[in-house]
C-alpha cells in the first residue's frame, strides 16, 4: 500500500515539470489568445482593457469562409499528396537493405540542412517565368509560353508537398519497419497480386503511421504562412497570411487573435477524429459492434 502510494507520488513528481511547462507555455497562451479576441484594438497595435464583441462579430466577414475553405482543402490535398508519395517510399525503405536504407534516409533528411526559407525561394526561382523549370517544360512542349507556374494555388500545393514530405516519410517508415512482411507473403499465397497485397495488408498494417503522418503534415499545413506568402498570389491566400496581415500592417491584434482561435479549433477537429478512431480501434468496442 505504502509502496504504491510512494510510486504514484514519484510518477507525479517526474511528470510535473513537463506538465508545468505545457500549462505555462501552451495552455495559458492559447487561452490568452482566445481572450484577446474579446478586447478592443488600440491604434498602436495593442489591445485595450475593456471587453467587447466587435471583433467577434467582424469575424463574420464574408471573405473569410472562402479563405478558411481554401486553407482546409489545400492542406488536405497537400497532406494526401504527401501520404501517397510517402507510403511506397516507406515500403521501399523498410524492405531495402541496411546500407541503402541509411543512404536514402540521409537523402530524406538532407533538405533540413538548408534553411526552410532558402528552399522556398529556390522554388520561386525554379517556377519563375524565366526560371529553369519553366523553360524546360516549355522546351518539352508541356506548357504554353504564357502559362504561369508561380503565384497560384498549384504552386502553393507543390511547394507544400515538397516541404512536408519528410514529415510524412519518417512516421510511415517507422511503422513500415515494424511491419511483418510475411503478411504480404501470406496475402500473395492466398491469391493477391502485389498491388492488392500492398493495399489490403501493408496499408492497414501501417495505419498508425499513416495517421501520425496525416497529423504531422496536416496541422502545420493549416497554419502555413511562408509558402503561400512567397509562391502564392493574392488568390491563394491562406488563413496564416490573413493572421499575419491583421497582426502586422493592420495593427489589429484582437482580430488576428480571433482568426488564430478559428485556426486552433480547425486543428482540433482532426485531432478529435484521431482520438475517436483510436478508441474505435480498441478490441472491445469492435467486438460489441459486430457481435450485436
Amino acid at each position, binding site marked *: 500500500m505504502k509502496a504504491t502510494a510512494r510510486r504514484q507520488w514519484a510518477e507525479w513528481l517526474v511528470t510535473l515539470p513537463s506538465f508545468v511547462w505545457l500549462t505555462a507555455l501552451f495552455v495559458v497562451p492559447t487561452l490568452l489568445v482566445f481572450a484577446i479576441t474579446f478586447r478592443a484594438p488600440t491604434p498602436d497595435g495593442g489591445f485595450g482593457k475593456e471587453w467587447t464583441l466587435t471583433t467577434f462579430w467582424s469575424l463574420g466577414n464574408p471573405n473569410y469562409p472562402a479563405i478558411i475553405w481554401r486553407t482546409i482543402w489545400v492542406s488536405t490535398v497537400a497532406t494526401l499528396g504527401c501520404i501517397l508519395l510517402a507510403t511506397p517510399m516507406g515500403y521501399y525503405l523498410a524492405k531495402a537493405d541496411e546500407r541503402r536504407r541509411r543512404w536514402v534516409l540521409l537523402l530524406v533528411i538532407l533538405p533540413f540542412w538548408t534553411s526552410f526559407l532558402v528552399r522556398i525561394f529556390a522554388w520561386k526561382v525554379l517556377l519563375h517565368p524565366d526560371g529553369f523549370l519553366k523553360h524546360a517544360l516549355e522546351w518539352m512542349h508541356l506548357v504554353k509560353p504564357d502559362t504561369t507556374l508561380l503565384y497560384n494555388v498549384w504552386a502553393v500545393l507543390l511547394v507544400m508537398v515538397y516541404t512536408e514530405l519528410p514529415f510524412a516519410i519518417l512516421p510511415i517508415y517507422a511503422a513500415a519497419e515494424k511491419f511483418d512482411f*510475411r503478411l504480404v*507473403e*501470406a496475402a*500473395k*499465397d*492466398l*491469391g*493477391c497480386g502485389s498491388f492488392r497485397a500492398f493495399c489490403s495488408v501493408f496499408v492497414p498494417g501501417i*495505419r498508425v503511421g499513416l495517421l501520425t503522418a496525416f497529423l504531422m503534415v496536416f496541422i502545420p499545413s493549416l497554419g502555413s504562412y511562408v509558402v503561400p506568402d512567397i509562391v502564392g498570389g493574392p488568390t491563394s491566400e491562406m488563413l496564416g497570411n490573413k493572421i499575419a496581415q491583421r497582426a502586422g500592417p493592420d495593427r489589429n491584434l484582437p482580430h488576428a487573435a480571433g482568426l488564430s482561435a478559428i485556426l486552433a479549433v480547425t486543428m482540433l477537429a482532426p485531432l478529435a477524429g484521431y482520438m475517436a478512431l483510436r478508441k474505435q480501434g480498441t*478490441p472491445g468496442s469492435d467486438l460489441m459492434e459486430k457481435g450485436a
Partner: protein
Amino acid sequence: MSEFLEFRDVSKHYGAVKAVDHVSLEVKQGEFFSLLGPSGCGKTTLLRMLGGFEQPDTGRILLDGQDITDLPPYERKVNTIFQSYALFPHLSVWDNIAFGLKVAKRPKAEIKESVEKMLAMIQMEDQAWKKPDQISGGQKQRVAIARALVNKPRVLLLDEPLAALDLKLRQRMLMELDLIHDEVGITFLYVTHDQGEAMSLSDRIAVLRGGKIEQLGTPAKIYEAPRTSFVAAFIGDTNFFDGIVAEPVEKRTGLAGLWPAAQNTDYSQLKVDGLGDVECYNDKKIKEGEYVCLSIRPEKFQISLEKPEERPHMNVIRGTVDDVIYLGSQTKYWVKSGEYRISVVRQHSKFLLDEQPIKWQDEVWLRWHADDGFMLEKYNEQDENLIQLPPEEVGETDQLAIDAAAAAGEVAPAEAGAADGAAGADGTVP
C-alpha cells in the same frame, strides 16, 4: 500416371551457399510428406520454391502435370501455413478465413458457407469476430489452417507450423493435423526440424542435409534402417560404436532350418575397441578392414541381471549401470561398458514392482541381435554440430523422441497414450 507433385533437379544458391543442391523428389496425391532436417538443410527453401516465394536456379517444379516453376504465388493452387501463422492482425478470425475467397471474388453466399464450415471444423464458431491478438497460440494455428484449407488447395504447405507452440499444445495440434489430413484428403507437404513430428504424422519423410536428400522413406524405414549415420543420429536416439570390419561370419548351415531368415544373409564380425568382437548384419557388403560406425537403437538392447543364454547372431556384452531414468512406461538406462556409455531403453510390458529392479551400479548384461546393428559410414564433426540442439529444446525433444520411439517401436498407440499419462504428462486433451 506421372507423379502428383514433382521437384526435378531443383537447385537454389544464396551467394556461395547451396541451400538446395539438385534435389529431385516426388510426392503422391493425398500423401502426408515431410521434409525433415536441421536448420539450414534447405527444407524451407524447397517449400518456398513450391509456394512461389523463391525461384529455383535450376530445375523444374511440376504440380499435377503442370510446370508451375515460373508462376507467381497467387496463381499456384497451393496454400501455405507459415511458421508465425501470419494471420492478418487487422482482420477478425472470420475475415482472415474469408480472405482468399474474397480475393478470388467468390459469391457472398458461398464465402459465408465455406467460412462457417471451416469454423465448425476448427471448433471456433464462437470466436469468429475476435482479432488474432485475442486468441491463443493453438487457436491462431487452427485459424491459419482454416484460412489455407478454405481455398481447397491441391497441396497444403506447412512450414514448421508447431514450432511456436508449447509442448502440450504441440502434441494436441499434432493429433488435430493428423485428423484434418484424414478428413480433407489433400496432399500435405510438411517442413520440420523435429523428427518426432515428422515420424508421427508422415506417410513418407525426406531427410535433408546440406541441401541434399539424405534418405527418403517411410518413418519406420528411416528409423529402423537408417542409411547414413547422420540419419541414425538425427532420427531418434542411437548409440554409435567405432569399429573395424573383420572376417565374415561363416554361414551356419546347420541351423538354416531353424532360422530361415538368416539363411542367405551375410554377417560380419566387427572389432570394436573396448567391447571385443560383435556380429552385425552386413547388407552393404562392407569389405574387411574398413572403419565403420555401428548404430544400435536404445530399445534394441535387452538388459538383464542374469547372463542371457547364447543364441546364434546374438551379441552379449557386460556393463555397469551408470544412471537410471524411470519414465513410467519405460526406463532409460545408461550402461558403462568399456569406454562407451550406452543408452538403453526398456519398455515395461509387465507390472514392474514384481520384478527385481535394476539399480544404479548393478552389473548387467546387454544383448542384441546382429540384425539390429547397422554399419554406417563414420560421421564427421560437422554432422555432430548439426545434430546438436539448443539446450532449451533438448528436454522437449527427448519427450518427443520417446514418443516417436514408442510409435516406431511397434507399441500400440493406446499404450503409447497411456505411457504419456504415466509419465506425468497427463491431461493433454481437455
